[in-house]
């Protein structure tokens, strides 16, 4: 007997970072740690750390919302070179 049930949070195994054609790059010297990027990220993959905003590229799909909502424009979207 096996129903199609899943274990919690196992989507983390999907590294959606390989969907990306652009990556967010953060100029942490300008970052004011407001948390807008972290709040508005659809993929929960950019975090405000001690150093400032820091993306987790394992999951980042490169949508650019973080760069758009950043009030001090310290995040730039740059093309992925592959």
């Amino acid at each position: 007997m096996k129903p199609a049930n899943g274990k919690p949070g196992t989507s983390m195994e999907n590294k959606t970072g390989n969907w990306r054609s652009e990556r967010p790059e953060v100029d942490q010297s300008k970052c004011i740690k407001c948390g807008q990027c972290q709040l508005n990220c659809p993929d929960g993959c950019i975090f405000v750390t001690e150093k400032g905003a820091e993306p987790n590229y394992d999951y980042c799909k490169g949508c650019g919302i973080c760069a758009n909502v950043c009030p001090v424009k310290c995040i730039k979207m740059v093309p992925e070179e592959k």
Partner: protein
Amino acid sequence: MKKTIEGSIAVAEVARDCGPDVVACFPITPSTHIAETLDKMYTNGEIKSYTAVESEFSAISMLVGASAAGARAFTTTDSQGLALMHEVLFAAAGMRLPMVIVNANRSLSAPLSIWNDHQDSVSERDSGWIQLYCKNNQEAVDTVPQAFKISEDTNIPVMVCFDGFYLTHLVEQIDIPEKEVIGKYLPKRKAEYKLDPENPITMGMYALPTHYQGFRIDLHQDVLKAAENVKKEMEAWGDVSGRKYGNGLWEEYHAEDAEYLFIGMGSVMENAELAVEKMRKEGKKVGLVRIRCYRPFPSEVVEAIKGKKGALVFEKAVSMGADAPLYAEISSAMKEKGADVPLSSYVGGLGGKDITVGHIEQMFGEIEGGPVKKVWDGETGAPKIKKSLGAGEENGGA
């Protein structure tokens, strides 16, 4: 305890004593009295929950939620109500959620008819539900506790089918098991998996082609295996109640030494018992095989048919544009198991057309001349009801 009681009320009483956590129903003739009785029980604090939903679709959907949360869940319906549930019936079985429906068998539209046949539940034969057909109200009462036990042991939903009006509205003497007896037989449900914030799981996922077929075939295999549970629970309940109905999968009546067999399901088989008794007295070697468990289909029933001079399958359902469903399945099982018995197919009793003892005698007579495939029109030999009684077919009788 023996009571003179309407079939529906008796079924509601035994459903109550099975201790359901969640009951959700939508009224539909002829199952309505069961729903009304359960609602009354709720207002008196005899059951924990009763929801009068806005459709049968919501009733079965509430059962899905309740069962997924680990509860014991029950509803009753028939006909259009069961058809409206169709989509969720498949999902409930596929999600491996135990629950019980009592289906008061009724015909399907169109034309609209509130009277009995088996088209409603037979049309859901491929849904993954276990289906048990009862011949009388005593059996319906005895089957409900077994249904919960089988369902919760196998994580497969169970449908208990008993004939609308012929049984639901029949007042007769029924032995209703004591609540304590049911309580001992049917322990509290222990869900193997459930929606629990302490141990979160994701239920009802979608499956890509790599996984989908595996789950569906797994369900199919488990429904087949559930035949063992049906047999086991018939034994166990038999020990508790003193009543058994064959081996749980099918029941034989004077079948062993019979030359001709009448095969069927439901309440018509009690009439057939009377016909057999009568014909036996006249020296005719006839017998019955009643399919009780239609899903999983007990193909071993062929062993009871082997060696006969002839057999007929009588059924109250049609597979439009093909052989009648029960006939086709018995025929296929016979071929597979090398039983070379001339097999006849009778479709009849649709939309409440009476099948009398006399009709059954006639059918037995007809197959002596070789296999027959026909629709029984239900007129020939029917005892004429006096118009003065006001209960003729023309009057509807509703």
